[in-house]
């Protein structure tokens, strides 16, 4: 009895040491991961002279909140934000209208070549986007789409992205077929089943589509760099690059203020849509 107790308490104390060790590792790692962000925010609030202080000042005093309006008004960031939102919103619309449609086709309807086509869709997820950069640019130029949002938006109206179709199809596969059959007996058409039953059921996955589409477009740099020319057409990503080359942008405080502002929409979206986010990512990995 006594021996057993000491064994037990030994195990307990070992368990405790391990837990403390885990906390120290995770906590230390968290600090390392948060330092860059904190540094960005702190630089954004500094006076230009404080930037060059040694040792570095972590908490700026006084905090210069005016850096934010100064950075955002020195180049037309309002227009850049508007452009980025217009592009992202249009892409989201395109993806939401078409991705579930295609996914439903793959999940529920039988037609010759379905397996092969789905395999092609899966492998196209791995195609690097740069392979078609040059031919697409030439085609879009021929169509007169350069310096418009069309090259950035229109592809999203063709099924969004293969990844979304895959995600939604996996989800539809988990919905019991009895649901369709019941609706069919009630005289519902195939499109009716899709739009009245499947689409409303897939709201959580559609949220994943919305969030990812927004992120991709918000952060995309190469696409806008190639297709957009005029200042009035620039996205936030391009605008930041442009800002960097101006007289104001060489000031680290203003540059960090502008950069920090640019990540806020993504951060907000992440905090509010966290559970959808995690679902989207884990679905990809576990069922790939």
């Amino acid at each position, binding site marked *: 009895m006594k021996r057993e107790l000491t064994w037990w308490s030994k195990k307990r104390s070992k368990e405790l040491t391990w*837990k403390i060790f885990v906390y120290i590792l*995770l906590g230390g790692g*968290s600090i390392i*991961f948060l*330092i*860059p962000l904190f540094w*960005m925010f702190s630089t954004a609030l500094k006076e230009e002279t404080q*930037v060059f202080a*040694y040792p*570095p000042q972590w908490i700026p005093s006084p905090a210069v909140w005016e850096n934010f309006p100064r950075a955002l008004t020195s180049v037309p960031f309002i227009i850049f934000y508007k452009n980025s939102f217009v592009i992202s919103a249009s892409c989201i619309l395109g993806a939401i209208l*078409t991705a579930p*449609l*295609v996914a439903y*086709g*793959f999940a529920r*309807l*039988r*037609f*010759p070549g*379905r397996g092969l086509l789905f395999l*092609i869709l899966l492998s196209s997820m*791995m195609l*690097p986007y*740069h*392979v*078609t*950069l*040059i*031919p697409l*640019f*030439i*085609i879009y130029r021929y169509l007169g789409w350069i310096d418009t949002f069309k090259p950035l938006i229109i592809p999203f109206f*063709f*099924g969004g992205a293969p990844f979304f*179709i895959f995600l939604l199809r996996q989800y539809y596969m988990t919905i019991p077929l009895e649901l369709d059959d019941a609706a069919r007996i009630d005289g519902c058409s*195939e499109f009716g089943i899709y739009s009245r039953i499947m689409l409303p059921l897939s709201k959580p996955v559609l949220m994943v589509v919305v969030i990812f589409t927004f992120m991709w477009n918000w*952060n995309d*740099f*190469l696409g806008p760099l190639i297709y957009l020319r005029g200042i009035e057409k620039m996205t936030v*990503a391009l605008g*930041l*690059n442009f800002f*960097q080359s101006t007289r104001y942008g060489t000031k*680290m405080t203003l*540059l*960090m203020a502008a*950069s*920090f502002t*640019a*990540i806020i929409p*993504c*951060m907000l979206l*992440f*905090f509010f849509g966290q559970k959808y*986010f*995690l679902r989207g*990512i*884990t679905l990809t*990995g576990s069922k*790939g």
Partner: protein
Amino acid sequence: MKQSRKKALLGYMFICPWLLGFLFFWLGPLGFSSYISFTRWTVYGQATFTGFSNYIKIFTDDPLFLQALKVTSLYVSGSIPLILMVSLLVAVLLNEKIKGLSFFRTVYYLPTVMTGISVALLWMWIFNPEFGIMNSLLEICFNLKGPKWLASTTWALPALIIMSLWGIGSPMLIFLAGLQGIPDRLYEAAEIDGATRWSKFRNITVPMISPIILFNLIMGIISAFQVFTQAYIMTAGGPHYATLFYVLYLYKNGFQWFKMGYAAALALILFVVILVAALIILRSSRGWVYYESKLGGV
């Protein structure tokens, strides 16, 4: 008969947005790209068919192509193993039953949400040799004089690799999902046999998530081959081509030097390189990836 044909037609109607998109934005351009790669095509001029000359030049007379390939491969072989190890470590720690999990998960995932130019600008400032936080911390904590990072031919690429570690969020979450799928009974059985923590990790965890390691490895390689924004913003390929990433070189050829034919050839070669790398890894994976279902379970 008629009914099933109608059904098939309906199926095609449902998938037609993707099918058309695939033809217009992937297959068509891919074919067109092969044609372009056999021509000399400055954007505003005419295309002249030149046969294999672009490819011959790339493989025999283009030191920058070799440099771009070298830089990209170095980056891939430096950052991918590190990312996989760190993200697996964090995932294992986050799989412990401790308090504050959702806080930690958020912290480690947050940087992944903010890729792109803001992050590139931020890290440029972090790596600033005189006033950046990296060298200040090195000096304060270890009394080391830090290198010139992005301005140094030796340290520019390592700097970008360090920066890439900030973005372990996605592989970490995928690992975490995999870890949560490992049945507890395996660990319990090992505990009865008196297995240590390390041997449990080595003999249960690693084999059980090896398919996920493979998945993360392939996805990581594909995305690492496509690095562009960091290189374009932070170093512009310099100093002395030390960070001339492949896609940056492709971009310069196509959109700065307007050698569309040449850039198209480069893009197709990139495609083949990625494909071959993925196939080699898939082949080799038969030796180290354990599929429970294929072997009939434990």
